[in-house]
């Protein structure tokens, strides 16, 4: 039994301890991230928490110069852009995350297919530190 429940907020509780969790359908074997109580493929209501390895590759990305309010609070702007992308995880599903350690001055040099490893990033928002999912090159 995993220490994490299937309810939504558990995904973020897991992140705080550096764990990446999703779910596995006990009927058809479909793996999902974030975790689902109802399998999106076969509608089974029998699923359990699945631990992800945190390994994957970059599938799509962008380098953002005009950030939303919270990213601006965390210090990002046109002079300090950031990369966000979609990561194809080794287990199959994809997830959105900030991508660290990329050459932000040359976005065209960022390679789709780059092997990535999960990490977390702390961002300060409204005076509090929050933990977010991120990936960096292996």
């Amino acid at each position, binding site marked *: 039994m995993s220490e994490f429940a299937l309810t*939504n907020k558990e*995904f973020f509780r897991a992140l705080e301890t550096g764990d990446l969790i999703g779910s596995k359908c006990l009927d058809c074997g479909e793996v999902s991230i*974030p975790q689902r109580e109802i399998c*999106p493929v076969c509608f089974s209501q029998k699923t359990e928490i699945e631990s992800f390895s945190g390994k994957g590759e970059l*599938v*799509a*990305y*962008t*380098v*953002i*110069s*005009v*950030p*939303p*309010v*919270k*990213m*601006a609070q965390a210090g*990002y702007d*046109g002079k300090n*852009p*950031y990369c*966000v*992308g*979609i990561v194809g995880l080794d287990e199959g*599903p*994809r*997830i*959105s*995350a*900030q991508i660290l350690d990329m050459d932000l001055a040359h*976005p*065209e040099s960022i390679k*789709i297919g780059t092997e990535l490893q999960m990490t977390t990033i702390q961002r300060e928002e409204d005076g509090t530190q929050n933990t*977010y*999912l991120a990936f960096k090159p292996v």
Partner: protein
Amino acid sequence: MSKSKWSRGVAIVGAGMSKFGAFPDKTSRDLVVEAFKDLNKNMDKPLDPKKIEAFYLGNFSSDQFEKQAHFAPILASWLGLSPISAIRVEDACASGAVAIRQAALAIASGEYDVVLVGGLEKMTDLHISEVTEALGTAADTQFEIPAGFTFPGFYAAMATAYMHEYDADRNSFFDVAIKNHKNGALNDKAQFDQTIEQIREAKKARAVKKGRPEPTWKTDLEFLQDPKGNPNIAWPMTLFDCSPVSDGAAMTLLVSEDLAKAFSDSPIYLIGSGQASDGALPERETLTGIPAAEKAGQQAYEMAGLTADDIDLAEVHDCFTIAEIMASEDLGFFPRGEGWKAAMEGKTARDGEHPINTSGGLKAKGHPVGASGVAQVVEVWKQLHGIAGERQLPKAPKIGLTHNVGGSGQTCVVNIYERRD
């Protein structure tokens, strides 16, 4: 062969819109009145408002933009239409077309004969960061926005996947912007009344006037490729790849097919309609197209008994330049991976084989999000009636298609309209 399951047909007997732009001195009520007056002006028979039985309003978020929820009955009352049924419909940037489709379904069911559809958004009263925040609520605010995504970011990510998959030239995105600004410059309702060339020359003149060195841009592409002229928003989406923040309203009147001639000598008919949904970007089967758009398009084609080659013009949801290229493939105008080449070869221009966004599209006409899906019908109405002025298509178009997307593709509505002689 048409395969409509609707109990009866639906016709459009008029369409109109306010000017799109930034109007600090106007409120939503002013814009809705302006659109309603334009609808009346575009109808060939006078409209008796007492005949209107229901009002559907496509509006994404007046609660965030104007701190006004529950807007449909207020606006119905403002037009003197109380106590008819008044409903606000929300599916992000697809709200307008969803409102049209819901109104059409209500007529097809037999519940109503005459329905007014409005689309509205008043976005420019907020600071740009608040607008970005408000638009962000159309995405998955738990798993996408905290990652750092913005709307330009979603489409930019799809653009990188598209460029990688098809080895596409980034300049093809700029060609979409150049074409849509050319069309928009011929549309007196458009937010931007200038071509990219005119914008470029104006910027050069401004630099000289301010005593700065004159930029050396000789072509539109040189200008668009220079971050000093065209800054990055979310690479590879630059400022000129993005539709603007806009205020505006649009209106159209739908009636049952059997009543159409009582309202207009030249109605157009809604002969195909489809709608589909999807999850957030990482959940999609592909990132190089919008699956919900392809599915909605297939439904609409099947209902109408038509294929992509039967479409004379399409107003597609070009919230970003890459979105128009993907739409041109999702709707079947070009094979997968060929849309970017078609854009570069001028195949989507007014004189091309598949004219797209003759109105200027969201890119140049403006994108008051809830109004966009309804304003697309205004262009179809004008083109099918041969009253689109300088941007009129030469070959007397008969079939027009609209493609309206919500979010990064979580909702898509495709409608097909026909002129019958």
